[in-house]
């Protein structure tokens, strides 16, 4: 292992603990089909951590069953750093016509229609949160050909979305390090790449 930018030798404590802990770093991830490294199972988020949302929206129905492309709703994921939570108007593009097949679905879709008629936004509970000092661009990652699932997990199978990846710096850097010399989409591990 290497530390970056300047060798760290000053901390005496490190040398004391070094022997005891050498070799503890776990092997991180494995290759996926988009050539990037996925999150090891041991670091996956827990499906039970999914919050209760104001509308029981299912990615498993929309993205899984009906195969609606992610970018249909998250329309700015390839245009902006922010992927965009769809406006209520986007929901209504379909749900003007589709009222639901089961009583439960009908009840949940009715909630969406209700928000729309009242002209109110749906107060979704936030799941992913990057700290304010970190810059992240969805656009750059989508344009580099990454699959949404690489970070967000098997979203098409999720009834309720939960945070799949840790979003910790180490997790980001693992992938960035592995692709430092990627011929097509070289990454960077300069601090200023993400720290703003």
């Amino acid at each position, binding site marked *: 292992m290497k530390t*970056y930018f300047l060798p760290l030798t000053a901390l005496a404590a490190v040398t004391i603990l070094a022997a005891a802990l050498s070799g503890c770093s776990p092997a991180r991830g494995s290759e996926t089909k988009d050539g990037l490294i996925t999150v090891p199972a041991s670091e996956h988020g827990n499906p039970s951590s999914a919050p209760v949302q104001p509308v029981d929206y299912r990615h498993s129905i929309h993205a899984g069953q009906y195969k609606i492309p992610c970018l249909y709703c998250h329309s700015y994921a390839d245009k902006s750093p*922010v992927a965009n939570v769809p406006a209520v108007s986007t929901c209504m593009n379909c749900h003007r016509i589709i009222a639901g097949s089961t009583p439960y679905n009908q009840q949940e879709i009715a909630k969406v229609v209700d928000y729309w008629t009242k*002209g109110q*936004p749906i107060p979704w509970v936030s799941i992913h949160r990057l700290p304010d000092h970190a810059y992240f661009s969805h656009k750059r990652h989508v344009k580099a050909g990454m699959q949404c699932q690489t970070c967000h997990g098997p979203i098409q199978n999720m009834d309720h979305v939960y945070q799949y990846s840790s979003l910790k710096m180490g997790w980001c850097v693992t992938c960035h390090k592995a692709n430092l010399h990627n011929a097509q989409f070289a990454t960077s591990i300069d601090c200023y790449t993400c720290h703003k």
Partner: protein
Amino acid sequence: MSGGLKRRDFLKLVGVGGAGLALSSCKKETEKLIPFVQQPEDIIPGIPTYYASSCRDCAAGCGLVVKTREGRVIKLDGNADHPVNRGGLCARGHGALQDLYNPDRLRTPVKKNGSAWDKISWDDAIALLAQKAKAAGARTAVLTGHETGSVDALIGEWMKALASPHHLRYEAFGFEPLREATRIAFGKAVVPSYHFDKAKLVFSFGADFLQDWTSPVKAARGMADARGGKSDGQRYVAFDARPNLAASNADEHVSIKPGSDMAVALGLLHVIASENLGSVPGGAPAGFDPASVEALSGVKQDSLKRLAREFAKTRPGLAVAGGVATQGDNATALCLAVHLLNAAVGAVGTTVDLDGAMRMENLASARDLVELGKKMAAKEIELLVVYGPNPLYTLPRSLAFQAAMQAVPFKVSFARQLDETSELCDLILPVSHPLESWDDAEPVAGVRNLMQPAMRPVFGSRSAGEVVFAAAKQNGATPRGADFLGYMQEQWKGAQSGGDFDAFWEKAVQSGGVWNPPAAQPHGFAGTVNVKWAAPKLQGSDSDPVLMLVPTAHMYDGRGANKPWMQEVPDPVTKTMWHTWAEISPTMAKKLGVTEDGDLLDIEGLEEKLNVRAYIHDGLRDDVVAISLGQGHTSYGRYAKDRGVNAMTAMRPVMDEASGALAFMQARAKVTRAGGHKKLSLAQGGSDQLGRGIAQTVTIDELLHPKPAPKYPGNDDFEVEGTYVPNYKKEYEKHPLSGNPMMTKHRWGMAIDLDRCTGCSACVTACYTENNIQIVGENETWKRRDMGWIRIEKYLEHGADGSVEVRMVPMACQQCDNAPCEYVCPVYATYHNPEGISAQIYNRCIGTRYCANNCPYRARKFNYQEPVIPEPLNWQLNPDVTVRSKGVMEKCSFCIQRIRVGRDAAKDEGRDIKDGEVVTACAQSCPTQAIVFGDQNDPGSRVSQIAKDPRGYKVLEILNTQPNIHYLKRVRREAAKV
């Protein structure tokens, strides 16, 4: 490290114990993600949207590009296509954002109820206004600021419906003497546009054209373009008793007795006429031969003759005069004398433009306002509507405008926040900010600016246009159009030269207006010189110093005081913050026993005695004491109230009779040491370079015949042995990023041309807005804890003849390749990034401040406190930049967020970043384009080109810090041999 423990793992282990305890008791807070209901077409979250607009903070009318994010305005930039400012924007222009988001803005219309304010609805408020106007009829008076657009026309229609003649436009700094002098000389009562870019030689008589006189950004840019390091560039001579910002930039500063500006101008005319160097209208002015002028002004006869010959022979020339500080009761005569100078050298039509003039001809004078006050006091006015001016702050108290206002039964104010005048009103309609409303203006003939709402009103305000439109309709006026926007479009139909109006309108909105200023035509002197050339009358004993009241760049006529940026960004001339100061010369300080800035002075001479903190101004004459204007508000919000003194209300009601302007230069002052000391916040400790060569200059001779200059000023025998390889280069050879195609392409650098820089501090303010720099407040600035990432350092060079040369240097982090700050950080919060930036990673910083101690440029700033950003000022924050918290070091990042945006755009198109695509906030804002940013690895980039200039040097190079900022020496244009 090989076979060891990673630092991060170690820290994780250390943290685990504490975190385990902490986590057990805390529950994750849920945050809401609120989407749009209807997706707007022109807003993409995370991507800025830009709108064209224009600035309304002074009469200049600069064009703006308004940057919005998620529907909020976060940054203002100059519009590069606009003929007035051509891309630059001054500090006050940036400050408009803090007017928009001022926490003291009124939320709803309010009606006075005894000493309290009752909230009322907008419809009720407008109905009440219309009802009162109907009752008052011809006894309605409207007082606005400098309005030249549709609102003004609409008020005209409203007043016509009410059959009222009382429609006044008033500005405290309204250039009445200049307008009147132009009328006398050329038959047009206008404020000319001055083309500094065309002048080979500029003479100024007290006019601070770089900060508050006519059109400062235009003047600065023109001047820089005419100089800009050229060996045959423009020479500038300032005649002034006090080195104001413009005079601080002069090649030759002729120190004259206060109030003798006119005599000097006439003396120059006398020489030109008697030596037949030009056609002086009216001939040589009697009584102003060089000998008499020497006695009046202190300018040596030889100098006067030399300068007169130079002015007559160097064409095109330009002479400018006027402005508040030198506005005595002979102000019109002074402006006329200077117009004669321009006429004598045929400057009118080249550098003095009467055709594309500033549209201030409809502005009233102070005397007109006083006349209105008399009518009010005589109960001839039943309804007064004030929109803009603040006469209770800017008029002398002795003019009794307050009593006059109190005699008016109903007073209405269109004010965004309470000020001295609106406090006295009965109904306040909180109108929208220009950035929230449709509006237009014609600051210069043919230059029609258009303002569009760049965002929804912060609070439920309505635009002045809407309010007047509604009230006028209720009062029986029949303005065309369905609403104010419709009315405005009707007004604009006249500006169209045929074709489809909708297309024309769309283009005008998109570009921020239509600009077709007419070309300047030559004008001969049309009047007769029938003036009594008298010196300004000054109250008080002849042995006392003359009291000058000086406007400041940030406060202007007091309107800047409610904006924390304007309070905290140091005044360009004195480097003071947050207060009023009284400037005295070092000699006078010694005489009075003033040992330190901030010692209290009693200043008698105006109608009221003023107690002000002293500022020892090296370079000020001994026969002058100067008090800064703009503070001393008794209202106007938390940042302005009860801070400093207001000398304007303390003045005697002396007028320049010819123009009806207030005479700001009206008295000599008795200055005494009051006893006691209050701290005066200063941004800079000393003004001596101590031989370090921080601000360097070069003479024309040296420029034309370059000699090898000492690389290490003050250490001429110093030599570096061998070739030094900076640390970062050695490090990167071993680094995994070496050879990484993303990170080794660019090497960012900056070039600052000191021959262009005027020290105006626009860059400082731009940096505050762009980088979320916190305002620390007066108590902290005393301790030198101001947070600006870039500052303007001011150094003085004392000549053997007693002259003082001012040198300004913008100083930011030099992004040293061999940065002393980087290797002392114990936690690697700061390091050198592969693109040459000395990076600071905030969340890694633990605040040891070793780096700041080790920085020879004082470029690092430490957050001694949490930022205090009252709602809605926080709406302005740039979402691309972290808001730093207490305990964190920060510094210039070369606007890394802008580099990131540039890189993003380049990657999208599969190309490299183009030169000029990434511009730092300071460079973008610079009115003179003194700052150039770019990639030093690209040999064709502007910064690489400029870095090769023989005037180039680096600051404190002897320390081997290897800075990435190149400075270009200022050119000293010494007196020509005529």
